[in-house]
């Protein structure tokens, strides 16, 4: 039996339903499209939503949670061709059109983030298509340094300042494998996004950052991401991650 477009387990907090209205509508439309009353001569319509054009002015993702995280032990990012070392970044939950979040075996749109003077390839561990939310980590990668040596320079406060949220954009760019993204590609993506008319997230829609978080290493970071994902996208994460317990409270951004 195929998984339905929406698992019943997603119907947890009604408030998520409201937040993810886009997804619900898309799903309903897809179900209608596959109704048996269709002419028998027509090809059946795939229930995988068609990929919207990216980047575009509509390919943005709305941040609904942001939290600065620093790691005692850096890790090598799989989301960059240069495999830079990462020691800090923004933990985030974003909301987006489910068509942009839907899993695809072919290249998916890159999830990118940029602020004033920086741009990076965003890391994530689940798609978020079942809820419209994706938990991700916006790693701070210092592209001013030689490839693969993007260690922090100076005090952590200055790094956080450099990874500022001014003119924050989080968006879906050109479809590509994240592991093949390099600095040159990021520069091109920035230009493409600007050319497409993609606007920064309005200041009043950038959530206040949660209290900074210090973690030991990537294992701890991933555990935290799964914990958030279990809240925000339970249909995807709970089944696959028995250790990721759903927290009792409603998702933070939904309150």
């Amino acid at each position, binding site marked *: *039996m*195929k*998984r339905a*477009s929406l698992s019943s387990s997603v119907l947890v907090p009604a408030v998520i339903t409201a937040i993810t209205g886009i997804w619900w509508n898309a799903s309903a439309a897809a179900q209608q499209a*596959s109704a048996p009353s*269709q*002419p*028998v*001569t*027509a*090809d*059946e*319509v*795939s*229930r*995988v939503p068609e990929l919207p054009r990216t980047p575009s002015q509509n390919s943005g993702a709305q941040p609904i949670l942001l939290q600065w995280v620093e790691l005692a032990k850096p*890790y090598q990012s*799989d*989301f960059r061709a240069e495999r830079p070392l990462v020691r800090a970044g923004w933990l985030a939950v974003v909301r987006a059109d489910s068509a942009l979040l*839907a*899993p*695809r*075996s*072919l*290249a*998916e749109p890159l999830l990118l983030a940029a602020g004033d003077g920086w741009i990076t390839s965003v890391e*994530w*561990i689940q*798609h978020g*298509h079942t809820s419209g939310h994706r938990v991700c980590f916006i790693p701070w990668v210092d592209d001013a340094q030689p490839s693969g040596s993007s260690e922090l320079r100076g005090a952590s406060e200055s790094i956080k300042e450099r990874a500022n949220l001014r003119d924050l954009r989080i968006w879906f760019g050109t479809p590509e*494998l*994240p*592991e*093949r993204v390099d600095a040159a590609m990021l520069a091109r993506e920035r230009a493409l996004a600007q050319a497409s008319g993609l606007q920064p997230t309005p200041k009043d829609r950038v959530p206040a950052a949660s209290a900074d978080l210090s973690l030991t*290493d*990537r*294992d701890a*970071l*991933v555990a935290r*991401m*799964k914990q958030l994902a279990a809240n925000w996208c339970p249909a995807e994460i709970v*089944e*696959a*991650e*028995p*250790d990721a317990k759903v927290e009792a409270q409603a998702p933070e951004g939904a309150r």
Partner: protein
Amino acid sequence: MRSTCVLPLCVSAILVSASAHGQCDADLNSDGTVDALDLATVLSGWGKTAAGDVNGDGAVDGIDLAALVSAWGASCPIGQPTEIKLACQSIAVAPFVSFVQTFTVGSAIRVGIDPALTPVTAGGVADVWVVANRTAAEWAANNNLQDVRGTAQAITLGSTLAQNVFELTGGTTLSGDGNLAVGRGYDLVVDINRDGRLGAGDLIDGGGNAAGLWIARDPTASGPLQVTTLSTYTASGATSGFTTSRLWYPTTIASLGQRPLVVISHGNGHQYSWYDYLGTHLASWGFIVISHQNNTVPGIETASTTTLQHTSAIIAQQSTVAGGAINGRIDVSRIGWIGHSRGGEGIVRAYDRIFDNTYTPTGYGLSNIKFLCSIAPTDFLGVNSANPHAANFMLLWGSADGDVSGIPTNTVAWSFNLAERCSGFRNTVYVHGADHNDFNCCGTNDFQGPSGTAINNAGAQAVAKAFILAALKYHLESEIALGEFLWRPSASLRPAGVSSAFTVVKEVVPAAGTNVRTIDDFQTQTGTSTSSSGGSVVSTVTNISEAFARDTDSTYTWSTGNPHNGSIRATSTDTQRMVAWDWNVSAGMTWNLLPALRDLSSWSFVQARVGQGTRHPNTVTLNGGATFTWVLQDAQGNVAKVSSSASGEAINRPYQRTGSGTGAGWQNELRTVRLRLRDFKSVNPLIDLSQIASVRMEVGGSSGSATGRFVIDDLQFVKE
């Protein structure tokens, strides 16, 4: 006939008996002399029913000793039975029988004797014996025949092959229970002199180590073993966030010895928990199986890393996982990797990384990976990085895949690329109506195809269970007979659990070596008038094109400028070539063989991969299966023709999916059309297989479909 005499009271009767059987019956080891070796055989079998039974009465006793003594010193022909395929099934076209090895339980099994190949006396009576499979050594030690059906079957021989086809009585009840083997082997003997022993003048199918006849159970059905599932365990050393894995193993593994390991790597947006159907199935047939979290989001490199890591982890942690139940039970020398989608490319990348020495796994090495199976794989990385090299490789793919779809505009979606790169044994299974997520439990429905053609999860997973199990048993457990599932059309051999309504298109290309003689691979000689083996090629077909196996104009629409439309087997950096041509009248393509390649007397099959050219006007006009005729001509000018239909099926019409241009018909679906060379001898006994001057594919007229377009690759002769 059992004598009731006992030594020494019936000497005369003994002599009569010995005479009736002939002195040479006492030459038990068929070494040409009745001597001490034969006496030793009698003495060692004394009082038993084993070797040494000279008169074939079922007991080794004084009568046998007397017969041996009376024949002492006799010179006998060095007797060897004739080894020849006997097991067969009836077909509708000449030579009206197809000689095969594997049957499914309950099938009608026939024995065919071709007087053109093995002279027999018309009107004579012989006995057909179905004997539990023996190795060559076992036959040498014991040539007494014991029929598993209880008694042999008398047949009256005719003068033609058609007259010499006999259905085995009780054949439909032969057991396929081979314990962990999917099937059970038997040897077939035609006991010409009816002495109850295999000897000179007799015919045997299975006189070597391999069985002549293999009765296979349904490979879609659960195996004989109960399965224990460990829902999750944590793999040490795997990428953070991707450490969880699921384990299936036979509950009685403690009594099974070491078992092969199978690793399942899921695709992007999929979960490790979505392959229970496959894990349970394979474990029930004796495999230890894991399905792990796969790091597919960043890409193929990361996915390959998790495959490599989890394989090492289960080997390293076997003493602790599942309470140590599998400790010491993993046969590290027999590992199979199965990957789906990005995971399907990931396992190939993993293999390639070890091959290239850019990754050294812990606990196993390249030689331990005996089999790769990619289900609807992507091809992000291309020929240099996603290359199975000489691995045993199987591709499983659905024609209604709405994700890795095969669209001509994106080579990432061309799964066949990976198979074409493989230089080892490779086979493909392309099933109509299956979509991408039909091969797991829970992915989104991505079906794209004509209404009413979907086979859904149950159908696709039956296909997956059957052919993955067959390939695993073939490659990891040497159950060679199951290899026939990989190339025989469904009409000839079909797993019972796979619906007869399904269109399953299969290719097999054996690894280059001494068992393969390639006449034309269309690679090294790119002109249409010379084969890759150096012989001249003459064709009378139209619109012939030997070129890269790629659609060049981003649509599946045919045009003279895009003669390989529908071919999605070579990216811009691949070098795979094929030939394509069409016809509206009698026509053909003839490959002349160089003298050194003409002796085919020891070869088993002629084969090529053939498919219909999608959306070509002739294909549209034909609107159904296409046929052709193989024609062999020897140096004396004798000609023998056998229709491609003798393989069991026509070359199917492409799946009628629309999109990517005008018209209906998805990619070019190649299937291996393989015929036994002896079939040509059956239709024309004069043909001299030791001097075949040319092989021809003939179309139109009386030779096959009146019109059509073919895409062809790899004309080969193959040994069984």
